[in-house]
């Protein structure tokens, strides 16, 4: 209801613009010859518009935020004794139901006897209160708009530096938007830090960083809270890095070579086809890659290795055959390979940009020396682009480490400390997901462990990103 004010404010704002412009024009026309107004009439118009819209919107937002709690407090302040006597939790439920009933909706609970009667009267009171507050908010907003408009009207005169004022307001608005983004991030980091701190009070940092045993499930047993759950994160990081390495083994050469193809070899026609296709690949949601990995690639790999094992059993490599026959769907290799495919377009489009940034004159110089295309790529373009490509690969690594969906679906949950790509491993992100999904106590180390993992992951990827950005940056500057 309060939000109905917004179209009203919009109309006021347009009127204010027109009025401000008109007033400015008239006042400027009254100037004596030779004198000139500081700003154009439209800028005065915008000035008036801002003074009408901003106060009204601020009042509306404040009203929207505070009218609910205010109504609640007023209701609670002089509620009947029977309601006051309720325990706090029930009392909240009662007022909630009173509000709902007042709005014509159904109450959550059945309140009988004295409370039932109280509900009816309180509901009526609540409805009246809300109505009053809403209309009060609307009136206050209109009042604010009118006052703002009057203020602007009093200010508009040829010497008013309306242009600078308007620019200032616009700058402020844009700053506020970017501040929201930054503050949110800072807030996330702080909450991460805070909860991690609580986790590290329960589990020593050294155990977390160097322990090789990960089994957080134990810790939820009542007799062991916080004391002896195994929170050694090494297997998780080992699994994360194993999968990341496999992904990079797939993505780095394929991505880089396709970038070289696109920037150096492809005709305009095939570039026009390949590039959009790669971009489509980049737009596939990771969950799709995830079930591709879990349902297609995983079984295919398992069948392949099982078949290979069956052939080896009984031969000189009997032991290996036995092992291969037991390989399961979920393995590091599947998750890594599919993640590598996901990263190909990322690596290739970054590398493509970087290779294209190498000046044409270097290519010309090399061709003019009688170098072939591949010689030019190998001896001039790649060395020149190497720092940038290294940066791109670091960015890809950081994405691989933070990637969640594919590993959740294809890597498994067993925290094995292994470098065997055919084994089931688990990653930091997968563990965070499993720790936080389902019903959780919010204070157990098990849940808090997710924050510890999150913080570590955040620090690792942050470091990678900073290094990568640095490299890419200096590389860009080199040719500017």
């Amino acid at each position, binding site marked *: 209801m309060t939000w109905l004010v917004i179209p009203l404010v919009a109309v006021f704002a347009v009127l204010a613009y027109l009025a401000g412009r008109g007033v400015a024009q008239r006042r400027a026309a009254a100037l004596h010859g030779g004198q000139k107004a500081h700003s154009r009439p439209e800028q005065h118009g915008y000035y008036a518009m801002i003074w009408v819209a901003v106060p009204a919107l601020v009042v509306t937002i404040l009203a929207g935020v505070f009218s609910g709690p205010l109504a609640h407090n007023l209701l609670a302040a002089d509620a009947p004794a029977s309601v006051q006597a309720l325990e706090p939790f029930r009392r909240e439920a009662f007022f909630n139901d009173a509000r709902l009933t007042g709005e014509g909706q159904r109450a959550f609970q059945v309140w009988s006897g004295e409370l039932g009667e109280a509900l009816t009267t309180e509901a009526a009171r609540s409805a009246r209160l809300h109505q009053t507050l809403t209309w009060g908010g609307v009136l206050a907003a209109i009042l604010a708009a009118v006052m703002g408009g009057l203020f602007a009207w009093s200010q508009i005169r040829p010497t008013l530096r309306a242009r600078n004022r308007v620019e200032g307001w616009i700058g402020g608005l844009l700053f506020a938007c970017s501040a929201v983004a930054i503050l949110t991030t800072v807030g996330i980091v702080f909450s991460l830090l805070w909860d991690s701190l609580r986790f590290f009070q329960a589990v020593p940092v050294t155990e977390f960083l160097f322990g090789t045993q990960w089994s957080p499930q134990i810790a939820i047993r009542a007799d062991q809270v916080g004391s002896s759950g195994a929170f050694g994160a090494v297997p998780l990081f080992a699994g994360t890095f194993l999968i990341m390495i496999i992904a990079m083994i797939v993505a780095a050469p394929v991505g880089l070579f396709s970038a070289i193809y696109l920037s150096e070899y492809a005709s305009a026609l095939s570039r026009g086809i390949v590039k959009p296709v790669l971009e489509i690949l980049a737009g596939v949601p990771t969950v799709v890659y995830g079930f591709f990995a879990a349902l297609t690639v995983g079984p295919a790999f398992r069948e392949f290795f099982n078949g290979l094992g069956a052939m080896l059993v009984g031969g000189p490599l009997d032991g290996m055959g036995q092992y291969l026959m037991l390989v399961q769907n979920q393995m590091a290799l599947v998750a890594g390979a599919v993640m590598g495919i996901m990263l190909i377009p990322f690596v290739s489009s970054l590398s493509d940009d970087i290779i294209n940034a190498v000046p044409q004159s270097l290519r*010309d110089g090399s061709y*003019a020396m009688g170098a072939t295309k591949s*010689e030019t790529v190998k001896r001039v373009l790649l060395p020149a682009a190497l720092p940038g490509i290294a940066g791109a690969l670091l960015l890809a690594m950081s994405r691989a480490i933070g990637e969640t969906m594919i590993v959740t679906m294809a890597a498994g949950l067993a925290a094995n400390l292994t470098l065997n790509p055919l084994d089931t491993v688990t990653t930091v992100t997968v563990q965070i997901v499993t720790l936080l999904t389902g019903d959780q106590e919010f204070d157990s180390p098990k849940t808090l462990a997710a924050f510890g993992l999150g913080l570590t992951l955040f620090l690792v990827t942050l470091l990678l990103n900073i290094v990568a950005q640095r490299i890419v940056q200096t590389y860009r500057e080199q040719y500017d």
Partner: protein
Amino acid sequence: MKLPFFRSPDGREGGGSADPTERRDESVLTPAPEAAGVMAGRVPEVKSPSAPAGPTKIAARDVSVFYGDKQALYDVSLDIPDKTVTAFIGPSGCGKSTFLRTMNRMNDTIQGCRVTGKILMDGQDINARSVDPVLLRAQVGMVFQKPNPFPKTIYENVAYGPRIHGLTTSKAELDGIVESSLKKAGLWDEVADRLHSPGTGLSGGQQQRLVIARAIAVNPEVILMDEPCSALDPIATARIEELIDELRERYCIVIVTHSMAQAARVSQRTAFFHMGRLVEHGNTEEIFTNPRERRTLDYITGRFG
């Protein structure tokens, strides 16, 4: 052996179908720096005497070049003698660079570029199927307007060509080539003690000489230079001009320049291009003192149009 003076039929030039680019190029023509003197009716003095031209090294016959549908060069026929400096002059966009690039088939690297006509080097058609452009470019070196050393050491820049063409078998041999090329390019004394520092760290003039050394290192027969001094200051320019004069003994040199004075100073032969056509060519002295064409006179005296 001299080709009969070639002119395209007038009908090709006239009409309202003139390409807008060409018209624009003509209108933005800025007088060469020395034009101030020329305006007063003076013609740049030709310093280098027209040495007896060597035998024809490159012979172009009816060469036309198209970029996509747009024709940039119209039936150019020209003989370029060996052991001589030939200058290409003409207003911006008239096709000098385009023609220069046909001689080492650098146009092949430009998408949509098509060359017709014949270009003979030592009597052999360089566009023939049997000719590998890669080998051709080892014989025909090229120096660009902006110095473009590779982001490698000075040594590696010069060693680039010998390495890719497998010209040497030992390190000592390669060292020798690098040293002699740098000496021929007149850069040795300045860089002998820092061969292994980056080539991009040199001054513009030094970079341009490094690039010339790089081109010389594969022992080419022809060196094409596209405005090699336009990014350099007068002192570096003088140094390069001296170098060109020295190199003339050994190589067939073609230089594109916007400076009339430079053309007059360094070249023995001059070809004047206008709107994709070769208007006039001959001994530099003749072109600068007694051009046959009105357009040539107007251009070299800076009174164009």
